[in-house]
């Protein structure tokens, strides 16, 4: 008998149906992936199961959980089920935890409310649960407030609160999307561990996550189920065109189709760059230390690393948005120095930046025509109005849009369109170097694929050089010629695409690669994920910053920071780079 059975479910807001005629079921102990792009109704479905939809939503159809009908069920029935028999983990743990209550108190509440434990037993169970989800010092963290924990730890706490009542079903709504890839691997491993205790409904846009962790998957498109079945068989032979689109759009880190090394002339070089920010008191937060790299014409260099690795600070210093404390940058023979306002016009024209979030990168009060045309106004004031509009249209066409977008405001664009407009703004001046700061991270899979293709096309047509900041190694694999890996503000490895992925020299690079989920249920030999999280930059570990998390660390790693050196064409900063072999052991 199925534990959860959804039949003909529809969710409407006024005249708009966000979910229509949706149905699937989950059996006891089964794990099911609910997959779809943003706006496909995944989260709405989860909220409907929990009875958490806003009042303005009208529900139709049926949701049966262990024989109880949940559609239009009284609040009391739902309260008996929520947290007790259905656990939930949301995307952003900071939002889901009450910032004013200690962690322990929030977990106790569930046990007390459902009378699952009494007296001293309550605290014991909470601490036991926190230990199980991997909080190393649970007795102490029991008393911590949410803000005292890192993102990964908070998500573990969320998981603990979802599991503490030993529910029959766990709903996880994009549980790892807000986390770094290594922490994602840790959380996913945790979900794997509890698989025989509870059924799992895993909502995600990432097919790699589904491939490794779900027996069955359900594919949604615009609020309807378009495909459903066993994960292995759907990956092998997708039944619906949309499933195929999603599968093809998912970049694979084990892809063989990678760009060959670029051979153009050097255009940009940075030597020993350092950036620091003022922290509390007189301390300085060293965001970037001693990072060097160079860029060739027509080359894409990716910069990767977990959050806090200094990727963004590094390029922002190069652009003059934050001061570069030490080191120097040279572009086309001339130094790049001082704040952006004082730089030569040519430099400002040739180096352009595309931001992560297109919505906040476009002025909400300006039409597309103005947004793109503004830089022309600055750099080519002699252009007549019609010539300027012609150039704007040209830029729009370059990114696959047309003149019908000229009069639109940013809120009238979808995420993908807005990012294209942002790219068009960067391209309209004909820059030589385009810096993409997580430019595709906020986009859906299929849109991301098209934007990446667009960048590749522009590069082929114009010989544009690209610096591509990303935390997603699968995307990096597919687009970049060379890769720079950063950890806590330092360069750990710089190598060409082929050698970095086939034979990484630094244990951190290896760990990053291993943490990326592969969208293929057949490739699933999971390795133990990298332990721990990035330490605070205000209190960095001694010696090599990575040593506390490194399985190859020896005494010297804790004492002396490693110097970056060249090793068979790879630049690496690891004491033991020569001795250890990190190539894929298959």
């Amino acid at each position, binding site marked *: 008998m199925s534990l959860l059975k959804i039949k003909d479910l529809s969710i409407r807001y006024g005249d708009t149906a966000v979910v229509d005629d949706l149905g699937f079921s989950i059996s006891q102990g089964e794990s099911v992936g609910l997959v779809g792009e943003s706006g496909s109704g995944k989260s709405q479905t989860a909220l409907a199961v929990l009875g958490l939809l806003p009042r303005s939503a009208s529900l139709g159809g049926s949701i049966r959980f262990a024989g109880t009908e949940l559609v239009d069920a009284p609040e009391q029935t739902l309260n008996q089920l929520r947290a007790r028999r259905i656990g939930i983990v949301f995307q952003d743990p900071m939002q889901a935890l009450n910032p004013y209550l200690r962690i322990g108190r929030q977990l106790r509440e569930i046990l007390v409310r459902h009378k699952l434990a009494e007296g001293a037993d309550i605290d014991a169970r909470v601490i036991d649960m926190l230990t199980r989800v991997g909080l190393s010092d649970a007795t102490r963290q029991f008393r911590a407030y949410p803000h005292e924990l890192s993102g990964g730890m908070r998500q573990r706490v969320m998981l603990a609160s979802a599991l503490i009542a030993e529910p029959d079903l766990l709903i996880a709504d994009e549980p790892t999307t807000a986390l770094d890839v290594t922490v994602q691997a840790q959380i996913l491993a945790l979900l794997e561990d509890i698989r025989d205790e509870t059924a799992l409904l895993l909502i995600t846009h990432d097919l790699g996550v589904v491939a490794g962790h779900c027996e069955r998957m359900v594919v949604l498109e615009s609020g309807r189920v378009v495909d459903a079945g066993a994960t292995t068989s759907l990956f092998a032979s997708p039944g619906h065109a949309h499933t195929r689109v999603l599968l093809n759009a998912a970049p694979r880190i084990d892809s063989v189709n990678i760009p060959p090394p670029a051979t153009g002339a050097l255009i940009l070089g940075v030597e020993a760059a350092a950036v620091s920010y003022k922290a509390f008191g007189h301390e300085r937060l060293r965001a970037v230390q001693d990072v060097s790299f160079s860029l060739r014409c027509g080359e894409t260099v990716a910069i990767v690393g977990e959050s806090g690795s200094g990727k963004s600070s590094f390029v922002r210093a190069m652009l003059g948005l934050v001061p570069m404390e030490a080191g120097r940058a040279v572009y086309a023979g001339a130094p790049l120095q001082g704040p952006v306002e004082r730089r030569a016009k040519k430099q400002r024209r040739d180096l352009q930046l595309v931001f992560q979030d297109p919505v906040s990168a476009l*002025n909400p009060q300006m039409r597309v025509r103005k947004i793109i045309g503004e830089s022309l106004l600055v750099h080519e004031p002699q252009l007549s109005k019609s010539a300027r509009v012609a150039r704007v249209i040209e830029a729009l066409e370059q990114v696959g849009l047309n003149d019908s977008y000229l009069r639109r405001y940013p809120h009238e664009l979808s995420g993908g369109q807005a990012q294209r407009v942002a790219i068009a703004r960067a391209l309209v001046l004909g820059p030589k170097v385009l810096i993409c700061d997580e430019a595709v991270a906020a986009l859906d899979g299929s849109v991301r694929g098209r934007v990446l293709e667009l960048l590749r096309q522009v590069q082929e047509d114009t010989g544009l050089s690209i610096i591509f900041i990303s935390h997603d190694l699968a995307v990096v694999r597919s687009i970049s010629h060379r890769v720079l890996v950063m950890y806590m503000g330092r360069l750990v490895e710089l190598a060409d695409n082929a050698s970095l992925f086939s034979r990484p020299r630094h244990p951190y690079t290896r760990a990053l690669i291993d943490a990326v989920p592969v969208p293929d249920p057949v490739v699933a030999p999971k390795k133990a994920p990298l332990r721990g999280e990035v330490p605070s930059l205000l209190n960095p570990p001694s010696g090599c910053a990575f040593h506390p998390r490194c399985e190859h660390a020896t005494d010297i790693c804790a004492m002396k920071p490693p110097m970056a050196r060249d090793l068979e064409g790879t630049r690496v900063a690891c004491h033991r780079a020569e001795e250890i072999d990190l190539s894929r052991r298959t």
Partner: protein
Amino acid sequence: MSLLRNRAISVSGVILLVITAFALFGPWISPNDYLSTHFDRPLLPPTTVGAHVFGTDDLGRDLFVRTMLGIRVTLMVAIVASFVSLVIGVAYGAIAGFVGGRVDAAMMRFVDTLYALPFIFFVILLMVAFERNFLLIFVAIGAVNWLDMARIVRGQTLSLREREFVEAARLTGVSTGRIILRHIAPNLIGIVVVYVTLTIPQAILVESLLSFLGLGVQEPQTSLGALVDAGVNQMEGAAWALLIPAGLLAATLMCFNFLGDGLRDFFDARHVN
């Protein structure tokens, strides 16, 4: 237009328009004027005799025309004072917020200093230093009102400055002036409009207070505040002389407040979408 679909905005807007139109055209309709005294008919209750629809005051002056006149003065004070606060406050706040650093610190300490001035004392000083003058009321109210506006705009500008579209403009080389004008200012409109509609009732109240204390508008000119003051003296025998101007004052204030609330909801909603 969706602006008019908001009930708070449309209802209070219509009432305000009616009151304004009445104040502008009412004195034309009435055969009386605000100056002439009729010692033969003091303190008449509202009556059609002699078209004294709001009655007369102790000097036999027609209260209908005087009330209309009072509304005119009150609204003018409110609008001019808000305009002053709008222009000075927005410019001051936007510059302080955008330039930041020491300039910001210095500018805001100046604002703090002005905040520390006791307002009534400040007005009395002005009255003593200069002659009693209609214009002084505008100056006094404006000088106080723009402080709040400057603080609000500065705060908003500080957060806008960090937004990526401003960074993008800096990167391409858009000048600071143009960034403030084209990127910051348009995004302030929502909050500024809302705040102005909330400053208007404040200015009206302050004007009423000043007039009530005898520091504001001088006879034979009048304002709603001055009329309420006069009405209080006649309260026992002639309640209408108090109730009518007080009622109109309350209605105007409430409408502006509702309008501000409505506009805030309207801009919030657009922001979320």
